[in-house]
């Protein structure tokens, strides 16, 4: 089962129709066809070998069409067309095979329109004596490709490199007729030197290629090639530049809140940048470092409430899963309340990121990153080897983590564990950014080991934050209903809320009880030696 497409830039239809008719294929009347290709920002469907399109055709109506590889299309018929410039959420599709297939790769990411292909299509099928199809042909002409910007209103550019395409659709068990027809067609078109050879795929894929749609999508910033002997300042600047690329790439999607992952990735870029600005002491120029730390703290603050609420709302089902159905239902007003806050938090993010302050900060930062290396002011240790400088920072972070961790005992406060988690994060960012300078495998092993400890500390803190937020929300809801004169909120809700909060308390306590062993495993002689080894290698 496959489809093959031929294309060209000059008007073909005259001779082709004749060639097809000689092969027993009578093309149907011309119909308007509009196809819009969708994928997530990070190309998850493409990664899974799937392609999604929304199709509108006179005789077929509106449908979502999914193809796997070069296989036959599966459809979901829609009662109305989709707006070809607007993102689509898989979760809004009705249950069925199509939704199930899209859900696992794209449950938490918006499907964004990438390009729209309009054409006039004529189709025809050759059948055998039993009426069973042998081969189907689609002739598309008057091709018009447009690429919607992901943001409504921003310029859509048009490409029209391809004027027509012929798709030859092979059917199962009918390889020969399809091949034969393809040969005939190629022969008939041979006179036109502008006709390239047939390629696997269909008109829409051909159009995506012509319009240079990046089918693989965003795959994270390009990681700079670091040299441990190079000057530390150069290395840091290269890494900071890649973080800035990630920030830029996720900016528009965050402002429009296309899905939660944009903000998440943007915040990772912000945190990594902040962390590196801290580590860059005596390497980066002093006043710039102070200014940018301030700027990135601002980015962090502006985006933090929205991210917390995203996590809470998206994780609601998992969070409430230990409750009875009745309790879960009773807590629905809490979710609704949080969702309302989430929406306004995102409005604030959008406002913040659209502000003049944000634009100024971003421009300043880019300007510094784009400065030629020779013009950059230097910290005292800017010229020292990158490996050595970062190695020292890793040792310092590791030392801090061990000292703080060993100090924790039964009497320690929860905040002491939160502080320890921060120590761990500092170390993790260093390892993730530069650990490979001491060997990829060794670095991955250290990160894995650290992750075991961080998971425990993370679960401990999450449980606390979730319980706090829940209790706080219940209190807010009580205030709201008092203000509205509605009296006390439903006792069932308060009771269910308290039950959930105490489950979270117990979870936190369990993680706390687990901490000792986890830390002991991290603070193990052999494990410590791996870190020392890694640092020794990167500093050599």
């Amino acid at each position, binding site marked *: 089962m496959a489809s093959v497409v031929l294309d060209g830039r000059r008007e073909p239809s005259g001779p082709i129709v004749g060639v097809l008719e000689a092969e027993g294929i009578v093309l149907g009347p011309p119909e308007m066809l509009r196809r819009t290709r969708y994928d997530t920002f990070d190309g998850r469907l493409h990664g899974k070998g799937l392609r999604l399109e929304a199709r509108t055709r006179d005789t077929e109506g509106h449908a979502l069409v999914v193809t796997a590889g070069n*296989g036959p299309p599966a459809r979901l018929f829609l009662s109305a067309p989709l707006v070809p410039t607007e993102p689509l959420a898989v979760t809004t599709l009705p249950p069925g*095979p199509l939704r199930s297939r899209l859900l696992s790769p794209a449950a938490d990411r918006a499907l964004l329109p990438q390009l729209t292909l309009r054409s006039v299509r004529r189709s025809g099928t050759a059948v055998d004596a*039993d*009426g069973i199809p042998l081969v189907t042909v689609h002739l598309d002409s008057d091709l018009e490709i447009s690429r919607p910007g992901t943001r409504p209103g921003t310029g859509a550019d048009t490409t029209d490199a391809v004027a027509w395409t012929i798709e030859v659709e092979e059917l*199962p068990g009918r390889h020969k007729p399809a091949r034969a027809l393809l040969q005939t067609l190629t022969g008939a078109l041979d006179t036109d030197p502008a006709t390239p050879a047939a390629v696997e795929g269909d008109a829409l894929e051909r159009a995506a290629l012509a319009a240079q749609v990046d089918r693989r999508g965003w795959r994270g910033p390009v990681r700079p090639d670091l040299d441990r002997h190079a000057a530390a300042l150069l290395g840091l600047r290269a890494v900071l530049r890649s973080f800035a690329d990630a920030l830029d790439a996720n900016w528009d999607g965050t402002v429009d809140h296309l899905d939660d992952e944009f903000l998440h990735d943007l915040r990772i870029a912000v945190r990594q940048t902040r962390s590196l600005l801290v580590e860059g002491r005596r390497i980066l120029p002093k006043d710039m470092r102070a200014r940018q730390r301030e700027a990135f703290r601002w980015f962090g603050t502006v985006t933090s409430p929205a991210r917390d609420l995203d996590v809470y709302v998206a994780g609601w089902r998992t969070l409430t899963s230990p409750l009875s159905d009745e309790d879960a239902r009773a807590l629905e007003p809490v979710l609704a309340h949080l969702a309302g806050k989430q929406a306004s938090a995102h409005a604030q993010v959008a406002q913040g990121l659209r502000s003049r302050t944000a634009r100024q900060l971003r421009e300043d930062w880019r300007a510094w990153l784009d400065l030629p290396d020779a013009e950059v002011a230097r910290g005292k240790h800017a010229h020292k080897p990158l490996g050595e400088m970062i190695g020292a920072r890793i040792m310092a972070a590791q030392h801090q983590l061990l000292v703080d961790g060993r100090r924790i005992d039964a009497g320690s406060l929860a905040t002491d564990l939160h502080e320890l988690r921060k120590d761990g994060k500092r170390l993790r960012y260093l390892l993730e950014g530069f650990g490979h300078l001491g060997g990829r495998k060794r670095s991955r092993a250290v990160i894995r080991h650290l992750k075991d400890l961080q998971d425990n500390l993370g679960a401990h803190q999450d449980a606390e934050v979730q319980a706090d937020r829940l209790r706080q929300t219940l209190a807010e809801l009580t205030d709201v209903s008092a203000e509205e004169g509605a009296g006390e909120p439903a006792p069932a809700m308060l009771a269910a809320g308290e039950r959930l909060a105490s489950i979270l308390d117990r979870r936190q306590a369990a993680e706390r009880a687990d901490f000792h062993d986890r830390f002991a495993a991290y603070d193990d002689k052999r494990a410590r030696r791996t870190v020392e080894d890694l640092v020794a290698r990167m500093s050599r």
Partner: protein
Amino acid sequence: MKVLAAASIKGGVGKTATAVNVAAEATRDGVRVLLWDLDPQGSATYLLRAEHHLTGGGARGLVGAGSELAPHVRATSVPGLHVLPSDLSLRYLDRHLDDVDRPRRRLGALLPPLEDAYDLVVLDCPPGASLGIESALRATDVLLVPVVPTTLAMLTLTQLEEVVAARRRRPRFLAHVSMLDRRKKLQRETVTTLAEREDVLATMIPNTTVVERMGPERAPVRTFAPRSVATAAYEQLWHELTPMLWR
């Protein structure tokens, strides 16, 4: 990919009629369907105008090591519906299965390579509860049993339920009334009893000559009688099944 099997211990109850018509209805929802005819009689193969023949050693080839289904698949006159034809050698299917390791996993093990190509596989089983059927049912998500509303049919229904219940990995068991003749008092009474069962679907397929005409027409009812009661009933049956296959 989901697997729906039409099966029953009893013969001639409408398994093939249900399999072919439900498969055809599913394609109207854009679902890519493969109908796998497991019955050596090949009624479904005949109705879909495919050749009653499997290349490469027939049933033995299918069950043998390294076999593939894809090369046997054929298009049908219903767009989106493909068929895996039957072959007379399927009457020895049990014997061939007996020769291999884990025979009950054998047929299901052939399906994963088709995972990307189809959303739904409809199995048309021969009557009975043989090893071949058990093997097919092990890969099945929903087992659909047509029941002609007579007392005896009820008995075979319970029997098949027992066969299924004995297995660890078992499909969801559902029955639907088939060939209902409302003029018969006994059938009306039986239907009332059946309707109380949770595993019996609400849709009832009436006894009508339109279904019989599938033979001479060699097509699903929708192709030649789109506005008939039978077509409407199969459409409704499919719509009742959809949420049970995909939640």
